[in-house]
């Protein structure tokens, strides 16, 4: 199947990951959602999947211990070009701080900034964008 929907959610809070997964599946019942509470593990997973060319949508939290969302983005920049190419990153944060939004937009790989909680409308919007591209 060509347009298999693959999602990665990264948040140190498993409750948020659970919620995100459920919401994504509500919109896209066939979606595959990978959950990570540690950004480093997510990076390792992305690198291990070198063969696939499927588009991946990634939801990234900002506030996390050890490596936070920004730390993930810095490391992500250093990945192979085709890996960067196939992954659309959306910041998914509870932060109301404008500075976080501005900082998120400064990363080329970041498509948008979504305020928690993730909603079905939000997933629908992203899904339609993905299809258009």
């Amino acid at each position, binding site marked *: 199947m060509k347009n298999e929907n693959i999602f990665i959610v990264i948040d140190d809070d498993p409750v948020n990951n659970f919620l995100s997964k459920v919401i994504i599946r509500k919109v896209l019942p066939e979606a595959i959602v990978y959950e990570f509470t540690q950004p480093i593990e997510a990076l390792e997973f992305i690198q291990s999947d070198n063969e696939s060319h499927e588009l991946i949508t990634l939801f990234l939290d900002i506030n996390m211990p050890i490596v936070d969302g920004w730390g993930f983005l810095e490391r992500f920049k250093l990945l192979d070009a085709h890996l960067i190419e196939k992954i659309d990153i959306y910041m998914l944060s509870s932060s109301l701080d404008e500075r976080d939004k501005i900082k998120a937009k400064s990363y080329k790989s970041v498509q948008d900034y979504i305020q*928690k909680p993730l909603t079905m409308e939000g997933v629908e919007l992203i899904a339609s964008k993905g299809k258009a591209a």
Partner: protein
Amino acid sequence: MKSTDENHTLMNRDNSDLFVIDARFTPVNSRKTNKIDTPSREELLASKEIQRVATLQKMAQTGSWEIAYNDKGVSISESLQWSDQVYRIYGYEPKQVKLNSELFYSHVHPEDLDEMIGAVAESLVLKKSFNVGHRIIDKNGKVKYVQQSGEFVFDKGRAISLIGITQDLTEKKTQLLQLQSTRSNLKNILENAETGYVLINDALEVMTYNPKANEFSKMLNGEELKSNKPLLAFIQECKKSKALSAIQHVLNTGTTFCEESCFRLPNGGRIWLKVQMSLILNSQRDVLGVTIALLNITQEKRLILEKEAMNKRLTQRNEVLEQFAYIVSHNLRAPLANILGLSQLITQLNPEDDLFDSTTQGLHQSSANLDQVVKDLNAILKMRDEIKEVEAQVDLEELVQEAIDTLGSQNQPNVQFKLDFNQTRTVKCVKAYMLSIFTNLIGNSIKYSKENSDVVVEVSSSVKRGKVIINFKDNGIGIDLKKHGDNIFKLYKRFHNHKEGRGMGLYMVHSQVLALGGEIKIDSEVGKGTSFTIELPA
């Protein structure tokens, strides 16, 4: 052409004590009667001589006078004769006024009159010349300084006249007075200056100093400054080498040295002095020595330090506020966002749905998280109130024991404590804070210990530079300070995944140490251990 009426006397010093009069005053009327039509050669010469003397008198601002004495030894008032220059000194045009002794005495400054009369009387009795300086009030009321030198002329032991010269010293005297007043003003300034001055020669000996410098010396060493003694004898032991190198630098390079320095007083206090040293050169630009200026700037320094402390407090407050904004944005809103999302979701779920249980569990978890953040915030705010608690001397060993008791179940049997409180057993602090600090740090040492190895926690105390230093050291897993150094003491910052922790402990420790007026530093190496050093005011 000068008037030939010019009266003058020419005086030569004889072997005797007396003046011999070569040319005598001649009464004007008698001169008239003696007048002849063609002046003789002698008369021409005399006339020239008269002119020359008049010019010299004018240049020297000196005039001459004479008064005759009767056979009773009393001056003949009307016989007083003045040269033109004397008239000018007294403010008259030559011959403008009729002379007599009353006129003369009327011009003597009343305060100097007795001295003047006394000098003349003494001269007559001792048969010696007199020389007296006094003030006169001239015709125009102007006070002038004159020098009167005179001597009696005796004939067969009887005084027949008194002759003398009057020199106008007003200009010189005024200059002298100005110089004196400049000097005394300078002296006055130096003696009352807030700045202490010590002048030393190039052999580093004290040449001179003002009272303020002496005051500083007494204050710093209990010793009075003394001239011709080595300067180093008056400098505190700990400042000697620094002072010496500064003075030598000034002597060698000619540059001015300036520094603000803190001095310890024998009574335990401290003062801040601004020390300035500069080279003294004479007009030939030879080095004479060094001036050392000392100014007490303790008050100003205290204000600056207070300002700095206030700035630091404000900056800290600001950081706390920013952290609160961050907490509200992330830590408070994260569980709230979950609750929003989950509660929205649950309305669409059937209680029989597999997801229903997970959703309610998630709701519960997020509510508990939210509650915990609120509790944390409350703890932080409460801590800020506790600062009002009184400080007391707290026993360090007891603190360790109480911390271990507080940790309770968290404490594992394989923890080994090495305590060294020999240097100081107690510390002055708010006990609740100190217990919290001890509990958090010891708790961290246990929590972040290496697996399968004994936990060793070392706690020691020492006193350095008037501060109590408490050191905590463990052999735990350590922390990468290059990566996390900036965030170590920040709220809700966590550095380990596999260990439970909310990122409250070190934030609280840091805040409490600051509230106690202290400082905390961390040193750590991954895999080796961590040490915390707390510096508290004694």
